[in-house]
């Protein structure tokens, strides 16, 4: 991937961004997003646009997290593309793992008389106890449960609404579910 003469010097922008220059970082991110979109679309031509956008975001977050590893004396694009390749490989691994755990069913059991449709309701029959248990959770965990489970937001929407990261939200909701399970099983 080559740079055209009118493009900003990415190496200089990243160097400035490492020193906390937000304007340089904004220019850098603006310049690399189309490059990432093209590169990912070329490597994963079968993916819908939304999935490509998810992967671009994944690469951006990863790049942001490891920006201290960039050495300004080296070219920027190979550094970025190494991260992108690594995250793409990871995404294939995650996709394969999730597919392995998926069970295709022709018809979901939704009738009230069907046991399979009632097993979740049976274990949390007391909504008041659940409400109290949620209130007892620490602030971060309570917020994660409210956004992800009660308001049914996606991880990205919840991260935007709470101003925290997707990873932190995942951890919070995981801990919250564990705490709720413990609290409700005591009752």
């Amino acid at each position: 991937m080559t740079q055209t003469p009118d493009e900003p010097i990415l190496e200089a922008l990243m160097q400035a961004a490492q020193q906390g220059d937000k304007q340089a970082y904004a220019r850098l991110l603006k310049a690399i997003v189309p490059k990432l979109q093209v590169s990912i679309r070329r490597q994963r031509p079968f993916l819908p646009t939304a999935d490509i956008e998810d992967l671009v975001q994944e690469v951006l977050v990863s790049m942001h997290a490891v920006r201290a590893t960039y050495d300004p004396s080296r070219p920027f694009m190979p550094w970025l593309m190494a991260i992108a390749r690594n995250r793409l490989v990871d995404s294939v691994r995650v996709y394969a793992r999730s597919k392995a755990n998926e069970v295709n069913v022709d018809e979901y059991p939704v009738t009230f008389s069907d046991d399979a449709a009632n097993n979740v309701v049976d274990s949390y029959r007391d909504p008041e106890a659940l409400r109290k248990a949620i209130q007892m959770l620490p602030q971060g965990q309570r917020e994660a449960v409210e956004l992800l489970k009660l308001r049914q937001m996606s991880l990205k929407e919840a991260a935007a609404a709470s101003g925290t990261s997707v990873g932190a939200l995942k951890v919070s909701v995981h801990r919250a579910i564990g705490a709720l399970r413990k609290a409700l099983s005591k009752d």
Partner: protein
Amino acid sequence: MDTQHLIDTLIDNSRPVQRLPRPWVRCALWLAIAVPYLALIVVMMSPRPDLATKFAESRFLIEQLAALATAVTAAIAAFAATVPGYNRKVLLLPVIPLAVWLGVLGQGCISTWLHLGSAGLSLQSDWICLPAIALAGAVPAIAMVVMLRRGAPMMPYLTVALGALASAGLGNFALRLFHAQDASLMVLVWQFGSVFLLAASATYAGPYLLNWRSVVTNRSV
């Protein structure tokens, strides 16, 4: 969240970061932590009485230098593995000193066999090598993990294997200074074998020690 929103969030959360030094500089920093600890271990365990004589033996010197070079090159390779886009050829750095180390020990076994026959290659139990190398390599290993976690988890298994090889290699270097065991076969099996075993088993901890999830959670927005 759309990409523009994410970009705005990343910009808002962009603070100055301390750039990671180059791999060989990080290796020097790691040695600065590890060497005083190893010196303390050698002093505490009391150096072997024939140490001065051993330093006059070329075979001992080559073996020790090869072990040290293996540790240093493995550490440089491990640090380089956490830098995206770094030339992957650097990962082969430890191969040559490792081959020299193994070659010196192998040559020792062959020459013992030629001089003393099969009686010279008897293998006794020397289990102390494994915990002793683990003890001597503990602080270097902890320092290595802390330093590796500051990089990018590009190749967790290989990175941790190289880091463990560096730490165990350094541990073995120290062990040879206080443990008077020089029979090549014994050194090959119990000392080199312990280094190999520790490095191989640490490899499985790779994805737990180095992964994108923790990197993104701890250092991201």
